[in-house]
């Protein structure tokens, strides 16, 4: 037999395998079965652009499932978590959630991670009157005002503006008050929201906007942008960016010698362990948003046990090793769902939603109460500043001291080093 014929047989065999798989899948052979559990389903970004956070988020929820099952489950029944990969692609969401609801027959659903992946879930949720726990999305419910949606991101009411309020407030408190500001952000959904919110705040706080441009996320070199900003010599630089551009901007700023009085604001990615360890001392002085920091003021009940377990699993799975950004929030989102099921003693969507809306929950990220549109009743977007980072070792970020919480005041754990250049020494 010559190579070509063998090749053709291989191809023919492949075709048979595929057809067979399709038939078997249709017969439900690949669907796992368990005995009378409570099923919670979700799509999550396990591949694609957001998977760096998506995988840890799912892991955190699996830790919750194990914690809950160790204590006897919910309403006396074990909990089962069914997750599919949404590939960070909004088009997969309708199919995934329909399968979860119609084929896997889940009792509750949780959203995927990210504004773009929560958006296509909203109409499905509204049509079927589902209770939705949202995992970190910005302003998903503004248009719909659906009452059974709850978002674990601590943006609070008016999420677009609240994102940056702390940053602007810190700037305005300094003496003498800075005058000029440069706004720069990526051409993508979150940064656009953030910059829109920032523009409002510029007016509110009376700063003068001297630079307001965006860049395509696939930009290779950020030095032209950093230079252009340096040329207008702003007192404040507010950046809204995703991880690759955050890294690019920080490096470019360091290279070009861009030193406003206060720098940072809405940079996603600086919270990731791999980014922190590779930027190292270049982070010093940057004031940026965050959701959690390993400071004394943020040690809520249960969170240290969570991190111990998470960091153990993360090491084996090869995901974000410290997990200080999304994982605790993913855990507490599903934790709230579980508490509400127990508290309302029911699996009815409306009863559970009503319970969530009218109660305050004690979770591993502290006390959570929801307000209008399902956002947090009170914003808790932190502003942190990196201080005293030396070298690129990861251990220095494990404990307190390198990421000091500046805002809001009730969680403040240190003082701002102002201006920015002072922290660089």
């Amino acid at each position: 037999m010559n190579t070509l014929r063998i090749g053709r047989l291989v191809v023919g065999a492949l075709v048979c395998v595929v057809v067979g798989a399709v038939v078997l899948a249709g017969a439900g052979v690949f669907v796992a079965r368990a005995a009378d559990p409570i099923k919670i389903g979700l799509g999550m970004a396990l591949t694609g652009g957001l998977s760096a956070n998506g995988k840890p988020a799912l892991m955190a929820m699996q830790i919750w499932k194990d914690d809950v099952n160790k204590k006897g489950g919910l309403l006396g029944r074990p909990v089962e978590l069914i997750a599919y990969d949404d590939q960070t692609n909004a088009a997969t969401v309708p199919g995934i959630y329909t399968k979860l609801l119609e084929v896997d027959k889940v009792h509750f659903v949780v959203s995927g991670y990210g504004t773009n992946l929560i958006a296509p879930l909203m109409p499905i949720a509204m049509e079927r009157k589902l209770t939705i726990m949202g995992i970190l999305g910005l302003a998903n419910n503004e248009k719909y005002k659906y009452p059974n949606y709850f978002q674990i991101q601590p943006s609070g009411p008016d999420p677009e503006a609240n994102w940056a309020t702390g940053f602007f407030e810190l700037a305005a408190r300094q003496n003498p008050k800075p005058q000029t500001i440069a706004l720069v952000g990526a051409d993508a959904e979150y940064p656009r929201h953030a910059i829109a919110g920032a523009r409002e705040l510029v007016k509110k706080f009376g700063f003068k906007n001297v630079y307001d441009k965006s860049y395509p996320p696939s930009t290779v070199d950020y030095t032209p942008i950093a230079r252009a900003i340096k040329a207008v010599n702003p007192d404040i630089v507010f950046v809204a960016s995703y991880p690759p551009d955050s890294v690019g901007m920080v490096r470019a700023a360091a290279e070009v010698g861009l030193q406003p009085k206060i720098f940072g604001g809405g940079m996603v990615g600086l919270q990731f362990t791999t980014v922190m360890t590779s930027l190292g001392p270049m982070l010093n002085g940057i004031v940026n948003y965050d959701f959690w920091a390993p400071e004394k003021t943020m040690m809520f009940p249960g969170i240290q046990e969570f991190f111990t377990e998470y960091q153990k699993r993360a090491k084996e799975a090869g995901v974000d090793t410290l997990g200080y950004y999304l994982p605790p929030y993913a855990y507490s989102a599903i934790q709230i769902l579980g508490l509400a099921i127990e508290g309302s003693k029911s699996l009815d969507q409306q009863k559970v939603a009503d319970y969530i809306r009218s109660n305050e929950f004690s979770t591993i990220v502290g006390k959570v109460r929801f307000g209008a549109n399902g956002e947090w009743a009170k914003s808790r977007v932190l502003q942190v500043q990196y201080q005293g980072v030396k070298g690129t070792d990861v251990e220095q970020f494990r404990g307190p001291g390198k990421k000091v919480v500046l805002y809001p005041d009730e969680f403040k754990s240190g003082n701002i080093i102002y201006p920015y250049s002072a922290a660089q020494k």
Partner: protein
Amino acid sequence: MKTVRAFLVGVAVIGLALLLVGLRVNPYAYFAGYVVLQYVIIATAWNVLGGYAGYVNFGTPAFFALGAYTAIFLIEAFGAPLPVLILAGGLVAGLLGLGIGYLTLRLKGVFFSIATFALSVVLQTLIINWDYVGGAKGYTLIRPPAPFFGSWAILLFMVMVGLAVVTVLVARSVERSWIGRGLAALRDNEEAAECMGVPTLRLKLFATTLSGFFLGVAGAPFPYYVTYVEPSSAFDLNYAVNALAMPMIGGTTTWMGPVIGAVLLGTAQQVATVTISSELNLLIVGVVLVLFVVLAPEGIVGLVRRLRRR
């Protein structure tokens, strides 16, 4: 198959679909079915240019997304109904096909391919910056109650069945007409075809326009399906790869190939989304594509033909 018979088969397919709806199968089937049928249209459309004429289009996402965004624009500006959206989406994408063809088809085929890839990037940048259709923030569609069949899932599924049947019938009739023969001639040897008097440029332009038209048609109902459209998922590279892989695997010389490829590969991918890791699923698509291209260049249709001849 004679044309009348083919037409009747098409009607029978639509009838079968209606039967499925009547039987109230699991709603998940409509969502998965929508995607597979969407790929039938995409693969068939791609093949008109790629398989019949031999010009490889890497920019499928551009045409598909253009169909979707034309629909969004018309929804925002005029509240246009679905049939208008589909027609308009197809026409605009067809015009794009004509334009890009006119610019590059007088050169070597590879320049057309690179230009289509560049087109995707440029168009995506344009859309990202066009706030009227949502731009980078994305566009949310709030659907009114479905006018027929009681649910959007079923309605969209039926629309797709209809569109798929139409697309395949059109592709089939092109294939059997003098246009199809002319395209085959220029695919095999463009210079020789020119010498024989085949109007190669006009045929090529016809192929790009028709191909673009149906790609746009595939994209126009997309906003209704996902209700949230943002550039990175509308321009997803998967459309480009699948548009290539499905005809290649099924067989490029006839209308049956893309259909087989789309049904097989599309269904396999839908299954994989909810079973094995989808990263592995993507890798498998790539490997299968390369294997087929190297070992079985005529696709499944070709393999079947060979088996029959024995």
